């Protein structure tokens, strides 16, 4: 597999994630720079991608390899967290209003001789 083939493959898969800019995400090409998963599985992806008449299992397998390559990038994870504004995680919920600690017990009390 030469470099040209690899570039063509990445170009093709880049089209899978076309709207990345709109969500401040990374392109596939950018993501795989720090994706060990992609490095390990590149040849599998290549073979499956260019395989003619793929069966359903091979289609699922290719999809999984592509998504794992993309979402295993630390930069992608960082972008997702940034997009979701992680500050929310620190939001404290006032549980006093939600759970009544004086409520009647709902479990069945057992008074059977041991």
């Amino acid at each position, binding site marked *: 597999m030469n470099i040209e083939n690899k570039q063509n493959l990445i170009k093709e898969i880049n*089209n*899978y*994630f*076309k*709207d*990345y800019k*709109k*969500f401040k*995400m990374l392109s596939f090409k950018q993501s795989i720079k720090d994706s060990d*998963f992609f490095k390990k599985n590149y040849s599998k992806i290549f073979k499956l991608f260019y395989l003619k008449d793929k069966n359903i299992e091979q289609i*699922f397998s290719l*999809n*999984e390899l*592509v*998504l*794992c390559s*993309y*979402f*295993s990038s*630390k930069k*992608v*994870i960082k972008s*997702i967290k940034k*997009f*979701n504004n*992680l500050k*929310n*995680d620190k*939001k*404290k*919920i006032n*549980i006093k209003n*939600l*759970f009544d*600690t*004086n*409520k*009647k*017990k*709902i*479990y*069945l*009390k*057992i008074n*059977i001789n*041991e």
Partner: protein
Amino acid sequence: MSRYNYDIIIVGLGASGAASAWMLSKSNLKILILEQGNEYNPKDFHKKNDTWEISKLKEFHLNPNIRKGKYDYNIDCKMSDINIANFNGIGGSTILYSGHFPRFHQSDFKVRSVDNVSFNWPISYNELEPYYEMNEKIIGIHGLKNDPAYPKIKNLKPPINLGESGELISRAFKKLNWHCWPSYSAIDIKNNFSVKTIYDTYLPLIKLSKNITIKKNLEVIKILSDEKKVKGVLCCDQKKNIIRFKSQIVILACNGIGTPRLLLNSKNKYFKNGIANNSSGLVGKNLMLHPLGFVEGTFNKNLYSDFGPEGCCVYSHQFYETNKRNKYKRGYTMQVLRGAGPLETALYLKKTNQIKFGNNFFSNFFKNYNKTIPIAIISEDLPKSSNSVFLDKDIKDSFGMPCVKIKYKIDKNTKEILKAGIKSARKVLEVAGAKKIFSFAPIKNTGWHLMGTARMGNNKKNSVVNKHGQSHDLKNLVIVDSSIFTTGSAVNPIATIQALALKISKRILEKKNEY
């Protein structure tokens, strides 16, 4: 063949083996722990690592047949409605669990008396309560006091933050006037909300003891016995060297699959159908797995449901006890989980054709990611002798020991429970404002609560061990894992597994001469 002598041998260093070893470490007894798997670095299975979603697809996959680790054994589930999930190594299945620590209800121990089903346990909630408390203190459980679903639970650390999704769903439960409570969670809030395993709790304490030796990567392939007593164990290493260890007491802590596997493989001239199996013939039978239902609601707004600790957020025991109006006996727990991570979300959406590669990939992805609330239904799973574990003589593991086959069918009672649980969970999600709800049951890959295959009881004709975990046939063979559960309850078993292991092991310390 090498030979070594110990007072006690513990087989397996997971949840129950670790609790048992800690209790026994209070003595001067010479103890050997044998673990077939490896020791791990907790960083490798930290659920909040960026690489965790990839790791759990292969080397930390729940299913040993997919994981195919060096120390795993194949579990043939072709005859089972549910696939088995486990982990073999120091830490056992705590490496993959969610860290949710609910106790059983009082009624779980007395289902025959209360509901006229199955058998009563030979012990009660009250007898186990001090050990629940002891365990919760050692683990450091977060939760909220005065839960209406239980008698008073002490020693709780402040509840973990519910997050936006937890708050929304709790309000929905409140509107319906249904029980809902923050989960009992073993979460390390100082370590990026990692789930606490035995690496953070019992293992460091055990390692302090000079009387305990831990040997890993050694599989116990046979328990040695004569007619009345266990004599020790035979082990095999990866080079297929056989080593014999002699001991006064052997404790099994290999879970509801590993324990019957070892007992069945240990047949000898006194026990032709497997060791400890003469009186009842029940070793390997009555497997309970807690079939799971899954209901997920998708909301229009961002609920940040992927953030916060993994596992259960809040839970409901509104429908836990038997209600005479129902078609079924016993009940279920609704466990509100955190949302799936980015990779899991993308894989799921792609597999179910809800997302397409191309122009709108992220547009559809962000319509789902962080906007879902999943609810798991854990149903009571009453024992049936036809649900069983048996040896697979055709397939052997890397140590040369036979693997196992599972036969398991979900019964009518459980199916009805799951149906009712799904209906309730859908109702909660509707009230919470979900725009899309989907549900299914059972989930195939969730047989991680492995119970009942060497059950405890007072009658040796219908149980394998007594109330002290001692085999009815061999008094110095003790079982401390979930295989001894008489019935399964409708909650995660970890708290009860460890409480039982502590109780049984304390009795060994107090009455060693009776073994």
